[in-house]
Every structure is written in C-alpha cells, then in structure tokens.
C-alpha cells in the first residue's frame, strides 16, 4: 500500500486500503467473486457446459447412464420439496423437513462436530509442538508415522469403537480436520520471526503463556486460518466418503440412489455438496478478510 493515498488523513489510510486489498487477495475459485466481464465469460462458459451436457445426455438417452441437467434439476426440486421428518439427535424430537434438508442436516451432524473437534485438537497440538522443541522431538516420529494414513482407513476403528452411525462418520471427519489443522498451526508457529519474540521480550514479556497469547498466536493466525479454510473444504469430501459406508446423509444418498439406478438423484446430491462447499468457503473467506485485514 502506498503512503501517498493516506498522507492527508490518518484514518483514511486503512479505509482506502481495503477495497484494493480485497480485489488482490481474492482468488477466482468462488462464484461470488466474479464481476463484470469475468461474470459474462463465466455465464457463457457455464451455459456452454450445460448445453454440451444436455446434448450428450440426449444422445445417450439412458437416464441411469447419463442424467441430463434438466433431469438433475427436476430431481433436485423433488428432493428439495418432498416432505419427511428429521429427528433431532439427543432431543429425539421429529421436526418437519424435506428429503434434501433432512439429508443435509444428517451430514452436518457428521461434518460440524468432526470439523470443530478435529480442528481444535489439531491446532492445539500444532501450536504445542511448534512452540516446544521437546514436545516436538518427542512426538515427531509418531505424527510422521500416523500422518500418511488416509482418514478413511480409520473406518475400522470407527466401526468397532463407535459403530458406523453419526459418531463413526464424525470421527473420520475429525481425523481429516485434525491433520490439516495440525500441520498449518505447526508451520505457522514455527515460522514466527525470531525478531518478534525478541522485541516482545525486550518490551517486558517474560513468560511462555503471555508470549504465546500475545505474539505466537496472532503471528500464526494467517497460517491457522488457511488450515481451517482447507479443512472446511476437505471435510466435505471426507464426510461423503465416510457416509458411503452406511451413515445416513448426503454421501449415503449419492450411493443409495445410484444403487436404485436413480443417477439423476445422485447427481442432485453431488450438486448439494458443491453448493454447501461454495457457501461455507465463501463465508469463511469473508470472515478471514475482515479478521486478517492487517495481512500484507
């Protein structure tokens, strides 16, 4: 950010910097970020894709081999409106829902607890190992050995310990979130400039807790935020995979519908995953941009 823009008024500087900074830092992966010409091109590309898909589906002429976009959209609307009930866990109360919202709610029951618990534990261990050389030395062999194991492989224990229901699926999601956040938090803490710690020490910080709270965590926040954002996306992939083993939810619906040769319904649920990913990723980016406006 140049100084000239803010030279006349101090408060104006940070305000003026923001719009600029936003357009630079935003990548093109989210629908909401498109504007003007990009939007026009995006619309053309999307329509071309849909037309090609529709043409291919009409040529194949077997819905179960390749459902057309119109059939998928129809299935989506049917799922979105077909009434059913959703039983709130623990409370046991059945609330009215539609098939789509009920399945999505089931998946959120796996996704959210897994994401939150896995992320918190991963960040805690990552910060701990990044901060303490001794803890790092002690646990590095273990983390190196466990890290390459895909979260889904733990389905074995999810089944024997918890059973393949909500708990088992949440467990798998938690493992996925744990590793992503662990490595980002670890790298963030390791990467904190020595100068910052030295300056803090010269300004009176003389205990570990204060140093972690006032220097290490804020300095590592961009890296930790990247971990959270990555896991928000990855955990949707994991939740689908975990549900394929039989936990009810969007992922289970994808395989279940396909087994009945209702691939139009499968694709409709695939679209649901994509939409919730785009929404959750977009929301987090927004939070990130507000919270980390100081980032260079």
């Amino acid at each position, binding site marked *: *950010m140049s*100084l000239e823009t*803010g*030279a006349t*008024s*101090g*408060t104006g*500087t*940070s305000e003026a*910097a923001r719009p600029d900074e936003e357009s630079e830092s935003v990548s093109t992966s989210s629908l909401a970020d498109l504007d003007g010409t990009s939007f026009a091109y995006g619309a053309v590309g999307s329509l071309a894709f849909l037309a090609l898909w529709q043409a291919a589906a009409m040529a194949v002429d077997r819905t179960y081999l390749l459902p057309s976009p119109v059939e998928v959209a129809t299935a989506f609307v049917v799922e979105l409106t077909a009434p059913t009930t959703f039983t709130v866990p623990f409370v046991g109360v059945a609330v009215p829902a539609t098939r789509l919202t009920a399945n999505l709610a089931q998946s959120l029951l796996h996704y959210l607890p897994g994401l939150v618990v896995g992320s918190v534990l991963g960040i805690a261990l990552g910060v701990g190992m990044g901060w303490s050389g001794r803890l790092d030395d002690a646990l590095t062999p273990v983390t190196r050995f466990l890290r390459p194991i895909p979260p889904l492989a733990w389905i074995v224990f999810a089944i024997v310990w918890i059973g393949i229901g909500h708990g088992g699926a949440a467990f798998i999601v938690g493992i996925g979130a744990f590793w992503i956040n662990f490595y980002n938090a670890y790298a963030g803490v390791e990467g904190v*400039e020595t*100068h*910052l710690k*030295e*300056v*803090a*020490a*010269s*300004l*009176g*910080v*003389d205990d570990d807790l*204060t140093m972690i709270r*006032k*220097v290490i965590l*804020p*300095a590592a*926040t961009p890296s930790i935020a990247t971990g959270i954002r990555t896991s928000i996306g990855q955990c949707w992939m994991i939740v689908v995979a975990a549900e394929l083993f039989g936990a009810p939810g969007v992922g289970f619906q994808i395989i279940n519908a396909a087994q009945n040769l209702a691939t139009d319904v499968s694709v409709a649920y695939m679209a649901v995953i994509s939409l919730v990913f785009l929404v959750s990723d977009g929301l987090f980016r927004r939070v990130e941009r507000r919270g*980390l*406006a*100081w*980032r*260079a």
Partner: protein
Amino acid sequence: MAGVSDGDAAASDSSTADDAERTNATMRGSKVVVDDVGKVYESDRQRVEALSGVRFTVNDGEFVCLVGPSGCGKTTLFRTIAGLEAPTSGEIRLDGEPVTGPGTDRGMVFQEYGLFPWRTVRENVAFGLEEQGVRGTERTDRIDEMLQLVGLTDFADAYPKELSGGMKQRVGIARALAVDPEILLADEPFGSVDAQTRDMLHQELLRIWSETEKTVLFVTHDVEEAVKLSDRVVVMAADPGRVREVVTVDLDRPRDRTEPAFGEYVDRVRRLIGE
C-alpha cells in the same frame, strides 16, 4: 571524571582527553559497561571466537556507534548487550547491574523493524505499556506523546503494511521509547531504507535523542553514518572480534558531510577498519 572507566583508557588514547569537551550530552556516569566480554561458538567441528576481551563504556546520555567490518562480532555484541545471548566470559553491566536477559531497561530497534503486523501503529506502541500494566488515559497519553515525537500522529490507526520503511522504523523507535528504557539499542536500523530517507531519519533520531536525553548505542557498517551521529565511535576488528579503537567525534551538530573535518574523521575510521 565519572565517565572514564578502565575500558575507555584501554581502548583509546584519544577518548579521555575529549570527554571534558563534550557539548551535546550531559555526562552523568557510565550507563553501560562492557567488561572484558568474550563469546565463543563451539560446535563438533569448529570453534569460533566471535568476541575477545571487548571493553568499553557508554556514558549516560551519550550517542555511541559500533562500527566494523562484517564478521567483527558487532551484531553478536549488540545481542549480548540486549541480553539475547550470554557472553562466554566477562560481563555487561547496565547501571552497575549485570545483564542476564532482555528487559525493558533496553529498548531495541532492528533493521527488519520487527513490528507486530497484526497491530496498528498505536497498538504497536502500546505493546510494552500493556505489559507494564499502564492503563487508561495514562497509556493513551503516553502513546500520543510517542507518536508526536516521531511524527506519526496521523498514521496512528494504520497497519504496518501501509507504511514505508522509514515510517516503520519510526514506529519501531516510538515503541522502544514508550516504556522509557535506560538506553536505546539499534542494530543497523536504517539499513533497509533509501539514502534520502536515511538522512531524514538521522536528523529525526538526533532530535529525539536530544529531546529525550536517552543513551543510544547504534550498530552500523556505514562509517559516514557513525561519524554523522555519534559522540564516540567504537571501531571493531575481526578474528577475533575486538575493539580496535574508540574515536571521539569532536564536531558540532548538525554535522555536514562536506566539511573537511568530517571527511578526516571518516578517513580515520575507515583506515582503522582497513577499508
């Protein structure tokens, strides 16, 4: 007189005589005593003597520059005085007390600024005050005073990324001075800014120095910078890092680079360094 220690006498023949003629700083005794400091780095394969028998003093209110060729240990010495590294032998005393670690009695300014990027200018200056438990209007007033001192009042709410290098370093100075340290330690603070900005920062630093009457120890590899700023220049030599000579710069401020006398001091220090 109080400002003369055995370190001075050992290091230079010229410094003692000139002490009496000092015009700018009010001498109130030794602030920092570097007493026979040695620093050895040992690994399996090699032994490096970074500092050997370093002795000198910095008097209260004095501006002292530390110059020398690369590898002469000036940064190691700086870090030792700051308390970031312990000497292998000898001792550093601040107001008579041995230095055992970093502390708020020594404000530090780095070449890389070391600003907290997540804090605004105001919040950066506030950091040390928060640690000292200074609250409310007392804290606000102190921050305002510091921002005024370095001329950054209008940028109080800007983040470091919005500032130029020169402005960042002024924040660094304000933050270091906010906790009212006994001495300001600066390690090549203007090494990352362009020449024009550096000249301006020199004038600012000298103004701040005379306004606050702080003691300053300033590490640089730039001989002209050292002659322009300091009351005395501690010239170091390498292998092992040691004090070659302490040169007293007996010139009125503001100093003009084009003056013959200025050039003579620069030449003299350069010859000592071996440039």
